[in-house]
């Protein structure tokens, strides 16, 4: 394993991040509530949860890509810069691509369909680095492709001529051009088959471990609903439910022994086909109509009267978390 747990200054430090969408008629949708986590260099934090729990809204908030009716609170510090209050000019000129590299959900849709991979790489190199001159750009683009093992003889192809795996590598190569200290991968494996998922996450892991020019390695925040992919790549896991991070845990302990502590995390793992294969009972609550207390109480077999109060803050947001003794019993 990597040195993911070493204590260095975090690349990204999120505190009390909340996102509210103001809807017509004065309705408010609580998409993200009070998120708090750090990501260190050389570390991969995966954010997991059911679809619609607010994972992608959190990613959009970090990139300043929220729609106009969104209101944010809290802070997301990338070095000294607060991503939530930074202006569009700062975000466009110094953050996107340079401080945060985005590995997109659907590479085929992310790439420009009418231009070759080479031309897109050269454009990105010219925009993000000081490389100038046709020959130098060409060489830099080829070097960028090589970093993600994108075959040089495919550089002159258009996106529709690439397989899903190669399109993913091209998109990852673009994300790495700016040599950003933080990589943000939003569902990078959706719709890929298992072998390709494994290869994609292994490659992302390699970029996290690669010491690079800074010497400390990159930080990776990966958002996914694919638990198998999360288990393969993560150093730490954040579980999101109804807009809140309900559990933050070491990946080995979470997926192995003693297992997750929040009842929701446990139920989510039990839905996997190689575990109990039973769904979490009921449906997630509406983000526009959340209860005052624990949002999971209605679906939880450990819920009691106390769960009507907001859950405690900390590593596990639950009134009745599983403790290791339960697991042994």
């Amino acid at each position, binding site marked *: 394993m990597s040195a993911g747990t070493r204590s260095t200054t975090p690349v990204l430090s999120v505190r009390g991040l909340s996102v509210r969408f103001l809807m017509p008629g004065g309705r408010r949708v609580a998409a993200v509530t009070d998120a708090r986590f750090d990501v260190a260099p050389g570390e991969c934090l995966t954010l997991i949860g*059911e*679809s619609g729990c607010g994972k992608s809204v959190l990613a959009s908030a970090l990139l300043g890509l929220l729609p106009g009716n969104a209101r944010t609170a809290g802070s997301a510090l990338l070095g000294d810069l607060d991503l939530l209050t930074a202006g569009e000019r700062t975000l466009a000129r110094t953050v996107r691509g340079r401080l945060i590299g985005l590995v997109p959900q659907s590479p085929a849709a992310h790439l420009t369909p009418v231009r070759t991979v080479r031309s897109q790489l050269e454009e990105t190199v010219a925009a993000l680095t000081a490389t100038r001159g046709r020959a130098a750009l060409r060489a830099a683009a080829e070097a960028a492709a090589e970093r993600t093992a994108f075959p040089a003889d495919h550089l002159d192809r258009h996106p529709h001529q690439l397989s899903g795996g190669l399109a993913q590598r091209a998109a990852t190569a673009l994300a790495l051009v700016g040599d950003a200290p933080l990589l943000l991968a939003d569902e990078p494996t959706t719709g890929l*088959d298992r072998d390709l998922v494994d290869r994609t996450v292994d490659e992302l892991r390699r970029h996290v471990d690669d010491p690079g020019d800074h010497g400390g390695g990159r930080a990776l925040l990966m958002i996914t609903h694919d638990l198998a992919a999360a288990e393969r790549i993560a150093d730490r896991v954040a579980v999101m439910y109804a807009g809140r991070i309900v559990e933050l845990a070491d990946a080995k302990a979470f997926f192995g022994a003693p297992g997750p502590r929040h009842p929701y995390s446990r139920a989510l793992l039990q*839905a996997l086909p*190689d575990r109990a294969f039973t769904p979490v009972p009921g*449906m997630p609550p509406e983000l526009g109509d959340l209860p005052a207390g624990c949002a999971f109480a209605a679906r939880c077999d450990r819920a009691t009267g106390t769960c009507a109060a907001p859950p405690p803050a900390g590593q596990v947001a639950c009134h009745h978390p599983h403790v290791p003794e339960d697991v042994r019993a």
Partner: protein
Amino acid sequence: MLELRSITAGYTRNAPVVRDVSLTVAAGESVGLLGPSGCGKSTLARVAALLHRPDSGTLLLDGEPVRHWRHRAPRALRTAFGVVFQQARLSADPRLPLTDLIAEPLRATGRGREADDRTAELAPIVGLTPDLLTRRPHEVSDGQLQRACLARALVLRPRLLVCDEMTAMLDASTAAALVAAVESYRASTGAALLAVGHDRTLLERWCDRTVHWDVLA
């Protein structure tokens, strides 16, 4: 009940996607068809559901060879199949509230009067609450929309269900819920299942028998 014999099928002449493939699904049996993306397994599933005419080969339903595909297939044959596709968004009419989406096959076969009863019966099985039924596709999540698409596939009580990567875009909990809904339908009706996918763990857990594409082709 369903027998595919040396099926060759594709979309352009002289470049078949599926070449000389045979596969049998017995009555009440669940068969998983496992293969990597791009191998042609979805095309075979479309042939099996009478949605794509093969270039050559025979398809037998209850021992009778099928002669017509798509809209030319007789209604009794078409309604014997229920199909769930991978991308719920692309297979749902964006104008219809979920309740009409689910009842569409009933209306199309002149059985619109059964719509209310049948929708009320199916909604709890696939895990849709009454407030979701009045929404249109853009107001629900992918998982909720796929639940509606499964209900639509079950509404005519098909004897064979074809699920083409039904859970590939969904999270683990929704996937397990949909598989449980399919299995509860099969337990009460004895319907057969052809589940196409790339996830070995899922198909082996779900189906009586899983065949790998490499063995077929």
